[in-house]
């Protein structure tokens, strides 16, 4: 019982440590200064990833409207389909098995063409240094494979900010709670550059790019809000009495 209670109150991961470590190695002093001057919410706590993946959907479980995400962003264009997010040859991996879940993460966005010089997950790594993906129109088009949002979540991405989404990818992100799918008011993929340091404030519905010093409005979550707030379709169904509590 205690274990379930504990997982139910898990908040979004504190990304500052990992990000700051990598940032200090790869960015200029001014960027570092920008980063260090911005406080990270103290309510965030690191999570036991293996336990989480065994017990409950990741990341957004119980994510409150006042939560925020912070880290480096990875920028892609329009119509990033599920084959580019997770190529079909990796679909033999079963996401509900913990070790295969982790493996899926290492292949996130590996299908992007060579025009994307920076790789989302560096060769030899299983985790990405980019916690936020910024896309254009129709992100996640193509397949209904849930492996797509799972791969992103398993790689350590916390949120996707896109101009618009394909229906199934959006739904799978909400149902699983793997990544938080947010819609921007404008085309942020043309405003941000891979490697920029950004913060997403859910409560304020905004994204702050610390590298450029600009702020952008995000759209409110809409219909899927109750399911996202609950932490996924199962949590929502339990909360509304649709299915029995575990």
């Amino acid at each position: 019982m205690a274990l379930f209670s504990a997982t139910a109150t898990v908040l979004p991961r504190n990304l500052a440590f990992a990000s700051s470590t990598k940032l200090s190695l790869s960015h200029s002093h001014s960027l570092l200064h920008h980063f260090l001057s911005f406080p990270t919410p103290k309510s965030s706590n690191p999570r036991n990833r293996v336990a989480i993946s065994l017990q409950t959907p990741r990341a957004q479980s119980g994510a409150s409207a006042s939560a925020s995400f912070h880290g480096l962003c990875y920028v892609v264009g329009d119509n990033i389909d599920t084959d580019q997010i997770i190529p079909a040859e990796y679909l033999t991996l079963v996401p509900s098995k913990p070790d295969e879940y982790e493996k899926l993460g290492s292949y996130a966005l590996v299908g992007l063409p060579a025009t994307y010089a920076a790789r989302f997950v560096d060769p030899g790594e299983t985790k990405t240094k980019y916690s936020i993906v910024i896309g254009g129109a129709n992100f996640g088009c193509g397949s209904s494979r849930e492996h797509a949002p799972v791969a992103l979540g398993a790689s350590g991405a916390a949120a996707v900010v896109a101009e618009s989404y394909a229906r199934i990818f959006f739904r799978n992100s909400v149902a699983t709670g793997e990544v938080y799918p947010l819609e921007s008011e404008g085309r942020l993929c043309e405003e941000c550059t891979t490697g920029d340091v950004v913060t997403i404030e859910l409560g304020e519905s905004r994204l702050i790019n610390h590298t450029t010093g600009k702020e952008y409005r995000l759209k409110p979550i809409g219909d899927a809000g109750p399911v996202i707030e609950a932490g996924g379709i199962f949590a929502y169904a339990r909360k509304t009495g649709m299915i029995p509590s575990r």
Partner: protein
Amino acid sequence: MASSLLSPSFTSFLRTKDLSLSAFTSQRCFKAVPRKIIRCAIAAPQRQPSTTGSVRTAMTMTEKILARASEKAQLTPGDNVWVNVDILMTHDVCGPGSIGIFKREFGEDAKVWDREKLVIIPDHYIFTSDERANRNVDILRDFCHEQNIKYFYDIKDLSNFKVNPDYKGVCHVALAQEGHCRPGEVLLGTDSHTCTAGAFGQFATGIGNTDAGFVLGTGKLLLKVPPTLRFVMDGEMPDYLLSKDLILQIIGEITVAGATYKSMEFVGTTVESLTMEERMTLCNMVVEAGGKNGVVPADSTTFKYLEGKTSLPYEPVYSDDQARFLAEYRFDVSKLEPVVAKPHSPDNRALARECKDVKIDRVYIGSCTGGKTEDFMAAAKVFLASGKQVKVPTFLVPATQKVWMDLYSLPVPGSGGKTCSQIFEEVGCDTPASPSCGACLGGPKDTYARMNEPKVCVSTTNRNFPGRMGHKEGQIYLASPYTAAASALTGYVTDPREFL
């Protein structure tokens, strides 16, 4: 402590059970209408719009299906409703993950909501030595035995598909072939092309593992009611066009996101003239336009196709005359030309004749979109008319065992009794391969006809995003079987009118 923990859960389970029983009873009432009456109603010269006394305003076909499935008299686009699922389909790629979630959420010993409403069809990564791919079929088998699932189309001996009597092939074609598609029903599958079944006048859409795990335990899912786009296609179908040309024409018009969160309804004299397989091709690619589902109103063509395939009663529904559509698109089909979708997007439409300078390396005929019996008949017709040999490797992957059998047994019209396989052999195509999804999405590296090098391919499949058939730099031209066959004969993208 133990008893107090068990008690609420047990009570809740009973409540769920009662609800499920009630839902079944309710559905049974709806479906009690004898088929003969439906047929008669369809045949009547002045068909009255399908309505019930409780309908207050007009509804589209999709709205009506979802209203009935959620036991509501009235629904409008944007409503979120819990619907009762008639059929849930899953396969080897998403089945194991869905099962994992079902067991995690409902318990290791939980039973699926209805052993006759779950259809499990291994079809994606079958003919491969990839150990994990093979293991995934084993996982499906273990689960089906444990749950006593009625419809599991298993394959054990990978060396020869013919010695596996239960094996079918591609799920979307197998669903139709085996009578799992019924007008007016809700069919969900863990595959984006599940929308294919909309050809039968039902609501059919793709879902992910987590939603599927939820359906496994409850038989229900929360769905948002989509508004409908209406596509009126009139005129006689020219003898050089197939429904692939029609859907590529539409996607080129509205783009890959043009139908996001929307239903696509296909009507008109051209649509009425299409066979079920052609209607399936049309509905199959609505997801390529972002569509939630596609529908073709059920008619005598539908009912005739279903004869002998299903013993369950069904009740079709139709859009009311005053139903509201988001938009209406009209096409005079007699004026359309053969088209392709150029790399790297299904909406990158071009006339086939404008691509005549594109040299190709291979042709692929297969998949749920373009690997059905009539797709191969169409290709054979072009080959027959040409009397020539193909210029590039031409791969043939029948969608199901039945399609494979048809290639070896059905005579091609105008051929003097020759079968497809005889014609294919004469013109130099590869021998028809084991039925499955094959290289449509790439898959394990040893998949037959997978594009392991950056080649140019004309394909009757459904998607051409980067890496779709294997290699990231592979270039795929989506086309109809007519265009694919014509292109094979010349080694360039070719308008089939050059041969027909």
